[in-house]
């Protein structure tokens, strides 16, 4: 089953008696949440540091300390690693397949935040072997899943409620990603944009805490720089924005090609006979190795060193374009073959090469106009991030966070917006959603969820078309007023600013039971209509219609002033028309 391959379901979660726990220790989970967020962050940080070191060691052992064209090990290492990883994934760690982002989303939305220990180990081992041996994949997405897995394990060990278990997965995911990228804000935003889908105050504090804890750990080992050195970043001349716009267009088109290539090859390879799945990663490794063997070993592995070199102007623009295109090809092969590893680093690689190519080209032909090549490379990374991964907010903040320079914000926003809009108009379905559909899952679309517009009371608000009476008016006067109107209910305004919706039946019963000069407020039941304002979500009204046939909507500044009234029919009509 496709679902089984994503997340194992062998381990049973011990049933938790929520009501009992709530009574015995009502604040237990709340307190544990923050403490555990720090533990999750620290553990994820340590695991991700070990993960990266493992990748580097494997790289040195398999590809040598300085891979260069013509070495046969460039062909052999990724091919053999591909075969080994395929066996491990098929027989031991079926949950380790893929990048890690969709698997974490599946765990969150389908399996109540459950990620098994075996999946975490499998992801660590298989991704480290594949990436270290030269497959064109990155460590961030696996780190995200490793972090989510750590969080899931801890939450299970402490027998937290199902709701908490579900919340812990994104906390761990943010910690893992933050440690891998050494940039906490970007990681938090990415998890919110791509995993959770919408801002949630309930989880934000813990996400921030765990992400920062993991980054502190990562920086204790790697230092404060991100995974590559950031050069001086400047916008020298406003005319440069034209070049950034060109970069945005190029990024949008490359993101489209990348999406199309993956969207075509991945299902095609998956539809082949099952026995071929054992050989696909090996064959992909051989092809990626061939790219390295015949002249471009830079495309092998995550390529952070090459990103660093491109940012510091070590390559000519023609070579940069060649590297971008070959990386695109190599990543498509590696990822489509089912080799475990992430898309994050290759996306940054292609973007950096593209940006540096535009920057170098401009510097070559317009030397007095352009800023640094590094600025273009950095913006290029954001451009591909926005265009390919469809995380526009993360893409902007990522560049700002790693550069630490806000002078580049304008070109980044310009280029990223162009790339995002272009990619979105040419390829409406985001890449993670394409993968989800290919896996036979139906996870919520984060892009749609982000942009989903929430209806408010003001959207269904009707005019004040019922009588309004004061609570001090005598019953007979109110009855006299109502006898001319064909309405079923009317509003009563009380001396303390509260309101009451009285039905005609209630009025009739009050007329029968009480004397005519009794103030109407004496005939009212003790409850009052809820305080509703036009900016509240429309669905908040639904729970009140079983009690009130009509609800007054008040002005926030003056609760004695009515903005209008709303009925169940108004609400349903508005939802049906939306």
């Amino acid at each position: 089953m496709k679902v089984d391959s994503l997340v194992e379901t062998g381990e049973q979660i011990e049933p938790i008696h929520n009501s009992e726990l709530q009574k015995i220790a009502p604040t237990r989970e709340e307190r544990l949440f923050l403490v555990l967020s720090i533990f999750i962050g620290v553990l994820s940080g340590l695991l991700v540091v070990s993960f990266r070191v493992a990748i580097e060691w494997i790289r040195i052992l398999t590809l040598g300390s300085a891979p260069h064209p013509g070495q046969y090990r460039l062909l052999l290492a990724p091919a053999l690693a591909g075969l080994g990883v395929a066996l491990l994934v098929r027989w031991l760690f079926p949950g380790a397949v893929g990048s890690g982002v969709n698997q974490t989303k599946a765990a969150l939305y389908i399996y109540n935040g459950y990620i098994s220990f075996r999946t975490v180990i499998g992801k660590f081992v298989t991704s480290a072997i594949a990436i270290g041996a030269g497959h064109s994949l990155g460590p961030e997405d696996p780190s995200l899943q490793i972090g989510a897995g750590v969080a899931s394990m801890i939450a299970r060990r402490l027998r937290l409620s199902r709701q908490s278990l579900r919340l812990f997965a994104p906390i761990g995911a943010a910690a893992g990603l933050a440690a891998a990228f050494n940039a906490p804000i970007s990681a938090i935003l990415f998890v919110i944009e791509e995993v959770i889908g919408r801002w949630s105050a309930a989880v934000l504090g813990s996400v921030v805490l765990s992400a920062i804890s993991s980054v502190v750990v990562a920086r204790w080992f790697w230092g404060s720089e991100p995974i590559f050195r950031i050069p001086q970043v400047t916008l020298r001349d406003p005319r440069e924005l034209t070049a950034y716009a060109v970069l945005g267009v190029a990024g949008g088109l490359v993101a489209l090609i990348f999406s199309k290539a993956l969207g075509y090859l991945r299902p095609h390879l998956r539809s082949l006979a099952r026995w071929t799945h054992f050989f696909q990663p090996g064959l992909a490794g051989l092809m990626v190795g061939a790219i390295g063997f015949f002249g471009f070993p830079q495309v092998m592995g995550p390529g952070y060193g090459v990103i660093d070199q491109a940012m510091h102007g070590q390559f000519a623009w023609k070579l940069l374009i060649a590297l971008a295109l070959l990386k695109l090809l190599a990543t498509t092969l590696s990822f489509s073959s089912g080799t475990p590893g992430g898309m994050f680093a290759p996306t940054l690689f292609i973007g950096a090469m593209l940006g540096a190519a535009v920057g170098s080209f401009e510097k070559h032909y317009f030397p007095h106009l352009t800023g640094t090549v590094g600025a273009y490379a950095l913006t290029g990374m954001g451009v591909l991030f926005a265009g390919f991964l469809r995380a526009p907010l993360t893409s902007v903040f990522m560049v700002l966070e790693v550069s630490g320079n806000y002078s580049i914000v304008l070109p980044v926003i310009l280029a990223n917006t162009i790339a995002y809009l272009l990619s979105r108009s040419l390829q409406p379905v985001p890449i993670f959603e394409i993968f989800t559909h290919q896996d036979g899952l139906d996870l919520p679309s984060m892009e749609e969820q982000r942009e989903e517009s929430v209806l408010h009371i003001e959207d269904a608000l009707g005019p004040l078309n019922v009588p309004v009476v004061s609570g001090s008016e005598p019953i007979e006067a109110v009855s006299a007023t109502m006898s001319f109107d064909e309405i079923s209910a009317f509003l009563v305004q009380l001396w303390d600013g509260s309101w009451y919706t009285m039905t005609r039946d209630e009025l009739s019963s009050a007329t029968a039971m009480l004397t005519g000069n009794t103030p109407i407020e004496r005939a009212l039941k003790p409850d009052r209509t809820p305080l509703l304002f036009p900016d509240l979500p429309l669905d908040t009204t639904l729970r009140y219609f079983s009690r009130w046939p009509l609800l007054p909507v008040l002005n926030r500044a003056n609760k004695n002033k009515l903005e209008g009234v709303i009925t169940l029919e108004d609400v349903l009509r508005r939802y049906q028309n939306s």
Partner: protein
Amino acid sequence: MPVFELRSPLTAEERQYKRKLILRDVVALLSLFAITAALAVATYFLFNSFARRRQALAERWLERGESAMSNGHPEQAVDAFRSALEYDPGQRETEIKLAMALSAAGRTEEAVSYFNTLLESEPGNGLINLQLARLAAKQGSESRAVEYYQRALDGRWQGDGYERRRMVRLELTRYLINRKDYSKARTQLLVVAGNAPDDPKIKLEIAGLMEEAQDPASAFEIYQSIADRKPCPIEALEGAGRVAFALGRFQLARAYLERAANHPDFGSQAETVQSSNRKLLDATIHVLQLVPGTELPPKERAARVLHAAEVAKGRLAACSTNTPTTSPSLADLASRWQQIPAKSSPMVLARDPQMEQTIMNLVFDTEKQTAATCGPPSGEDALLLKIAQSPMGVEMQ
């Protein structure tokens, strides 16, 4: 315990469960802490061993790169330096070495791009500006080359900045001389000469460049100042003789060239250099034998004038024969020669200094005009032309 019961509505069983829960949570958190600590220690050792390995690899590749560069294998050096930087990024020295290796490997575009990036983070670096100047010169962009040379001169240098700036200025001068921009080259040489230390080697280099920049007078002054020292380098004597000859100061040229020929180091020089100096000395002596100097006895002086006239007339006749169409300037010269008495003896001519001067002027005009019409002369005609080009110099001996 009625008070406790009031504060806690839990049953005894629930209280026991709560205690168990707290105990379990504490144990769970402690074990989590222990796991974290153990993992931190393991990661620390793993990372440290990895960091040491990286450092060792960085040093190894740096050495290989330097060795490849010194052995003339810049392509290998590029790979080696790149590897060194991958394991130890941000090392400025290695980055500059890599850029220089790229340049040496003929990957000019990559080298320019890399140097430009290095320059962005350190705009005042003299070495980077110098390298960019060389690359611009290689690419044929004179204005950018000169601009980068100038920035290199104004930039910061590690070590002996004074010495390095002089080297840059001399390099810039050579570049300008190659571009035949002698005026700018002379300006640079004036600055170098003004600031140069009292080192004969450096002064000889400056004087040599002055010769190339067509400033023999300044070059002669420097050669002369060195030649007056004791002991003086043979190069100064040779240079002074050569420049004195070029300036037409043949007596001085002869004196310096003879001193050079008698210098103890003369024999240890290359055969070609010795031969060239001997030829120049012979030519100088021959010129001096041709020059009708005022210090000579009148008869001898008149004889030299007559000899020069014979040589010049022969040259005019040969040139007129070899010229297909009659040149007006040659015809004019022939007409002037016809006005000179055909037969004249040294005795007669010695009594007419005015005529001597007229004949010598005509000789000089003839050599100059025939050289312009029929190409550079040889033999005594060449020597006479040399005298013609610097008659004042001859008189200044």
